[in-house]
């Protein structure tokens, strides 16, 4: 892939917000994101002072902790031209919710507002900001793409991943029926209301199975772990990956969760 801006000075400095789930469960997603950003002509750094975007506290009603974590993220990433996360949910938190968190603190609100404007979800950053229209990856088979709620509704991410996936040789994209419906993850919701969560994810895995695709992709590890966990419990041979892995041509490693072959079930 050709760099859009080969001159080092013109290359934006991007802080990779790797997300707590990718950090703990799937570093491959972070490395795939870094590769994609570099291919798109960015200088990538991943500050080690990062932990989490603060959503678990924010969505549990602990506003004070959420603010403290948000302030820490802003401190760690403020110096970058852009902050990019391989997650619509975390990027949505940085972009949409940080300014709201500091609404009662004028100085911080201004910082959060300026910061939020430079925060992006990975695929939309590649497509909308860096103008990437095709990736030099190949993938053999049919994939279904799941629209994660926060990316879809808070950030308007729908066409960008589909367009980039369509540029991959050998890849066929399948649409999931009722694709706008949540998979039932919802962070702590999944453990607080497991019966409802399982009902929702089972509807989702049924719709994914109906597409006939052998691989499921999405841009958010929360949804992916929920869907992969349910597929694996169902004994499904469908492989689950973060969309960045496929776009970066790094889909040769193990998928998320077990790999069940058709004969095994």
């Amino acid at each position, binding site marked *: 892939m050709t760099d859009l801006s080969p001159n080092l000075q013109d290359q934006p400095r991007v802080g990779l917000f*790797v997300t*707590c789930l*990718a*950090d*703990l*469960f*799937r*570093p*491959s997603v*972070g*490395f795939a994101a*870094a590769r994609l950003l570099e291919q798109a002509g960015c200088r990538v750094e*991943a500050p*080690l*002072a*990062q*932990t989490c975007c603060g959503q*678990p*506290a*924010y*969505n*549990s*009603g*602990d*506003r004070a*902790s959420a603010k*403290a*974590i948000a302030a*820490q993220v802003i401190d760690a990433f403020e110096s970058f031209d852009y902050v990019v996360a391989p997650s619509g949910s975390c990027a949505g938190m940085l972009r949409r919710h940080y300014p*709201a968190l500091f609404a009662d603190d004028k100085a911080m609100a201004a910082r959060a507002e300026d910061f939020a404007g430079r925060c992006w979800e990975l695929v939309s950053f590649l497509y909308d900001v860096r103008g990437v229209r095709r990736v030099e990856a190949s993938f053999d088979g049919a994939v279904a793409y799941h629209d994660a*709620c*926060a990316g879809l*509704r*808070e950030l308007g991410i729908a066409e960008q991943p589909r367009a980039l996936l369509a540029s991959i040789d050998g890849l066929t994209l399948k649409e999931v029926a009722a694709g706008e419906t*949540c998979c*039932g*993850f*919802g*962070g702590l*919701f999944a*453990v*607080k*209301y*497991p*019966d*409802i969560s*399982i*009902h*929702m*994810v089972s509807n989702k895995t049924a719709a994914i199975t109906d597409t006939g695709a052998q691989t499921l992709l999405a841009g958010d590890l929360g949804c992916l*772990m*929920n869907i992969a*966990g*349910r597929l*694996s*419990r169902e004994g499904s041979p469908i492989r689950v990956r973060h969309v960045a892995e496929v776009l970066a041509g790094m889909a040769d490693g*193990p998928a*998320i*969760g*077990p790999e069940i072959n058709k004969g095994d079930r």
Partner: protein
Amino acid sequence: MQITTPQFSANAKDALADKDLQMALAKLRAGFTARRGKATDRLPEFDALCDQARAIKDHVLANLDDYLVRFEAKVIECGGQVHWCVDAAEARDVVLALCRDAGAKSATKSKSMIAEEIALNDHLEAHGIEPIETDLGEYIIQLAGEPPSHIIAPAIHKTKDSIADLFVKHHAKYGFDQRQDEASALLEEARQVLRSKYFEADVGITGANFLVAENGSIVTVTNEGNAELTQILPDTHIVIASLEKVVPTLEDATTILRVLARSATGQEFSSYTTFSAGGRRDGDLDGPSAFHVVLLDNGRSAMLGGEFQDMLRCIRCGACLNHCPIYGAVGGHAYGWVYSGPMGAVLTPQLIGIEAAGNLPNASTFCGRCEEVCPMRIPLPKMMRHWREREFETRLQPAVSRLGLALWSWFARHPTAYGLVARLAAWGLNRVGGRNRRIGWLPGAQGWTADRDLPAPEGKSFRALWAAGKR
């Protein structure tokens, strides 16, 4: 009505196991959402109308006292009376007193969520006045002794069979001794029973979709024409409405009407939309001689100026219920009180207290679909989060959750310590996952693992690998 909101999880479990309910909900999820989608697609100015509708209600809420006083003056001009009620008990007593003044033995009712909110039927019955629901869905659940399971489709959870059973049981006394199996025959039977009730009733009680300040009229919206018969035939018409239903002008009411039916059922307009002001005037051929508006506050004025004010824009279209994956999974009864779905998750804690209703704003994935389809642009997820904040501030969450959250947030604020724990967890969980890379059981995580696996981590944390120079 007994509040079962604290047992939301148990209610949900029952609902998920109820096959009839699940079939009804699957139909509702597909039908209502598709019809709304078509209706809004056909109207290019739908979004602009939603903005206007929101602006109208925001203006009303900023000047609520003024418009309510104007509305009352116009009602009096039309020969009616407005009764201001602080809470449910006062509203019940006022309605009962008005029924007694009219010497009523029975009262017909058209659909009103406010009547549900104040448990009016129980109160009237306890005092010897027979309330008769005239909306078919409401009539069915009245016979069944159940609350509505949806704000615009109250009997959506009922199958044709269960309705036939109810009619056999309750209509024998009217001479209907044949069990009907066809929907049209059941409908015809209900019409015949209700027809005589309309004429016998001494009082007609309706809700109101709008109260119009400029001329004191009320607006009702139905698909059955039952609100019209309810308000025209008896000698007394009582309107029960909460105070945020007021709009300044007829023009404002019609603007909001253009988004109401489209959002609710996907109709451009409901079959019957009736504007009526006051009772019978000289020369009128029909209509009640007495006209009363019972105006209910019940905690709503306390929402003004606070973080829940936007909820008062709600026009009860039900779009948030129809598009909510939680409502779509468990239906309305699981919510344990009158209001369900996202709008119920925000409103119920205000009306019965967050102590009892804490489950409702928590039972959301914040998927955002409700806010997306709300024609009044109510930020429902944001307000559910505000309720969670209230719970946190008043220490209502279980001690274990609070401790877990406190521990987690301490680590999240200490990156070095967090990094160590993440490395350890990545390594440990990877070992637990073994060669299959799946974790089928984890102590303390049964909520996750009971019916789904936890995919095991790759083994090292990203930050550890990155710090070690991997690229």
